[in-house]
């Protein structure tokens, strides 16, 4: 927390299990993406701080925030009461993750998570936001839970291929991720339904309330003046701060 040119250094843990276009690495392994652009805008608004980025695995980053090694972490951190008990979340989100169910083009029986009860997902990662959504569904429906099979770092591409070949019924996946992969693989798949527009946050340790508040303030300003919307357009081709309906019409071209 020392000063460099008089500014306070803020250590930000960024996930090296990269996730374009939110956050990934360029040729020189420097971080780029929506998250980084957002943070740069925040930094401009807070002249007292200098941001420093540190790569690390997500689990490790959270432990780092927990133990005070890092000031905060950025990734798709979804909010839930359990997590809020452990970490400090700012009030306002800095973006959204659009989650969806992807099926074969000729299937119409799957639209929501309810339709997936008794059906088969490809293996799911033990950690991350998607997993958390599925787990919380199961907590709310203890009598008809989804059947989940866990696997360490499953490959999204492999999983989509499983759905394509009929070895799984539908994959629960981020829309942006699906679109990126689809561009490459062009599988016989479609987005069968948007499940949620999940707000995503930065995560702080409880001791860091002041910083969290200042950044939250900056986030609100950036949202209101449209900066973040522009960034979203830049990286995703759609302003996900609009409501779902608009996104469905204007944004991602699902039936492509």
């Amino acid at each position, binding site marked *: 927390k020392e000063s460099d040119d008089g500014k306070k250094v803020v250590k930000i843990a960024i996930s090296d299990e990269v996730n374009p276009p939110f956050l990934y690495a360029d040729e020189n392994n420097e971080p780029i993406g929506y998250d980084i652009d957002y943070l740069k805008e925040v930094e401009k608004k807070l002249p007292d701080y200098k941001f420093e980025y540190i790569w690390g695995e997500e689990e490790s980053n959270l*432990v780092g925030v927990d*133990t005070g090694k890092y000031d905060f972490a950025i990734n798709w951190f979804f909010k839930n009461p359990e997590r809020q008990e452990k970490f400090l979340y700012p009030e306002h989100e800095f973006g959204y993750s659009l989650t969806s169910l992807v099926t074969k083009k000729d299937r119409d029986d799957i639209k929501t998570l309810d339709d997936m009860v008794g059906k088969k997902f490809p293996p799911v990662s*033990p*950690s991350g936001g998607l997993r958390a959504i599925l787990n919380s569904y199961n907590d709310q429906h203890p009598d008809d839970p989804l059947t989940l*099979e866990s696997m*360490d770092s499953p490959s999204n591409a*492999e999983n989509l291929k499983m759905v394509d070949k009929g070895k799984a019924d539908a994959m629960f996946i981020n829309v942006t991720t699906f679109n990126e992969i689809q561009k490459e693989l062009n599988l016989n798949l479609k987005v069968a339904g948007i499940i949620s527009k999940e707000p995503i946050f930065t995560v702080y340790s409880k001791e860091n309330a002041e910083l969290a508040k200042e950044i939250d303030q900056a986030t609100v300003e950036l949202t209101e003046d449209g900066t973040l919307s522009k960034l979203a357009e830049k990286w995703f081709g759609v302003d996900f701060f609009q409501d779902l309906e608009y996104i469905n019409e204007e944004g991602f071209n699902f039936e492509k």
Partner: protein
Amino acid sequence: MLFSIINLEFALEQFPEVLKGVPATLAIAVVAMIFGLVFGLLIALCRIYQVPVLNRFFIVYISFIRGTPLLVQLYVFFYGVPVLLEFLNEQTGTSFDASEISPLIYAFIAFTLNTSAYQAEIFRSSINAVSAGQMEAAQSVGMTTAQGLWRIILPQAFVVALPNLGNTFIGLIKATSLAFAVKVVEILAIARIIANDGYRFLEMYLVASLIYWVISWVFEVLFAVAEKKMRRYEDRAAGEAA
């Protein structure tokens, strides 16, 4: 400081859940260890006696197995076998279903092949640590080389090998967590799944570590006792004379 962060109550609550991963961990470690011992020993003997083709083959085998990540070896079976079966089905009209193969089987195979390469080196060094005079004595009383190995050399070599085998086995117990990459859910995997909901990684790592420690410790003790028993004949434990 650390302990103020850790919610012990939560950790304690989750203990039984994580314990459910113990059978998978033990199954993989024990199966791989036992088969690894047999294969490792055979490989070591082929190398020591420089059995023509096999010696060359196993040099490459050991190098390849040790040289490539275990994760990759797991993937080779996990992704490779279904492709192979599919190909077989197409060619011969059979109908094997790869999805019916339990992931545990892939883990057994990959871990056994992996550990046998390491154990081959352990046996090679320990057999070479036994003085050649012992084999000569065995042969002088009319034993075949095989009998001499089995009755005289290996019992002595095993004593030298034991601490290293202990290393390998304990390493194996922990390495089973890699099997999560092929859907085998064991101790660490369960811990991580639980941790994700509330981001309680510290607590869950603590729980997993404790379980690993206890299991490994039991084996550590067993290995130490075995070593002591087997060293009986050495009498003057080195280092005793000040």
